[in-house]
């Protein structure tokens, strides 16, 4: 039976929805070129740049929508957008 609580939402449950399914292009990272400036992380709208200990570790492909901002903003062109399904 529904109660007064039922219309109040628990935190962070949106993570369960994998927006990565939206992509038609995906970012590929060349770690050799990366200088860990973390601009990609600062500009990612979807928390999809993985960072650990101040280092850019990769892309969270479950949620990355393929917007291309990271590739566009990377000062070292370390990220390129490729068509989904391509290598």
């Amino acid at each position, binding site marked *: *039976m*529904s*109660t*007064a*609580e*039922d*219309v*109040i*939402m*628990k*935190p962070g449950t949106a993570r369960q929805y994998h927006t990565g399914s939206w992509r038609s292009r995906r970012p590929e990272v060349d770690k050799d070129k990366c200088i860990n400036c973390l601009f990609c992380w600062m500009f990612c709208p979807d928390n999809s740049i993985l960072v650990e200990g101040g280092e850019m570790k990769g892309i969270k492909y479950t949620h990355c929508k393929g917007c291309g901002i990271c590739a566009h903003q990377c000062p070292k062109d370390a990220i390129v957008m490729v068509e989904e399904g391509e290598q």
Partner: protein
Amino acid sequence: MKRLAMNGDQAVALSWKQIDPDVVSSYPITPQTIIVETYADYVANGEVGTEYICSESEHSSMSMCIGASAAGARAATATASAGLAYMWEMLYIAASMRLPVVMTVANRALSGPINIHCDHSDAMGARDSGWMQIYAENVQEAYDNSIMSFRIAEDMGVRLPIMNCLDGFIVTHAIESLAPLEDEVVKKFVGDFKPIHPLLDVKSPHSFGPFDMPEYYYEHKYAQQMAMKNALDVVRKVSEEYAEISGRKYDLLECYRCEDADYVAIALGSTAGTMKQVVDDLRAEGHKVGSVKLRLFRPFPFQDVAKVLNGKKGVAVMDRAISFGAAGPLFADVRSAMFDNEARSPSFNYIYGLGGRDVGVEDLKKVFFDMENGNAETVNYLGVKL
């Protein structure tokens, strides 16, 4: 506590003082302004710990109550007429968020033309909003209902906002003799506010006010409706508890000499008080009449109303509002309640008192005479000058 000479607005302010809500939002509109002014005096003199916000509009006033209540605070406000109309969308939102906001409504006619006097069109316009509505006959009831409102709204089986309705000017401004309860008694009766997942509990964050797709909306509304259903018993229970501390017994409705009456009139608010005088006068002349004061309008006590009106020779439903293109809003619900009675009585709607048009004892006698003489129409306009 000794008796006080107070008007309804002052009595409500006094009840708030004794309860000391955490947040009160205020915006002036006749005839409730005295409530927020009186309360402001208490605030200025340090007699309450309330955070008092002078809102810039009623729409914002209600939004503040919603924010405060969701934050985990007990919130109250007051309005009337156009103010209630201005906050209309927020009423639905407060109810849908299951926030037990308490609001006194000084029933006043809706514009236009602009009119500051009593009728029920304001609260009636909000009858579908999900707010409970309780009506006071006089200053004592305004005070008593105000205190009970907090307990009813905050009950864990309810968690719905409530309108404490007082007839504009008639109850709000007329000075009557009030028997208040002691401060400690009121405080104990109302108790502490128990929030559900409050915003200010930052260690346990929750999100209020979701976006519902068709897959979810209906169940949320159904839950509101079930809470309304629970409220019927909660109002009864709270009223019984209140009787223990005050000696004043209240139910969902009050039957005045109606058990053995042939003809009964049912009304909300102060007119139900006038009706008692009408009934006494006519009974003295041998007419078998009675009256019903409906106290709880939302949720509507269909069973109680059907029972008390069962088998009467005629029922007059007094409406101090009109649903244009149909008839009186109270008539619609009362007639609906009566429909399934085995001994279904003829019922007649009396639209009266719009925009504060005065209706007195002599005027109301006509209602009973109409029914007795077979002159009552289905919808009658009592007091209109044609």
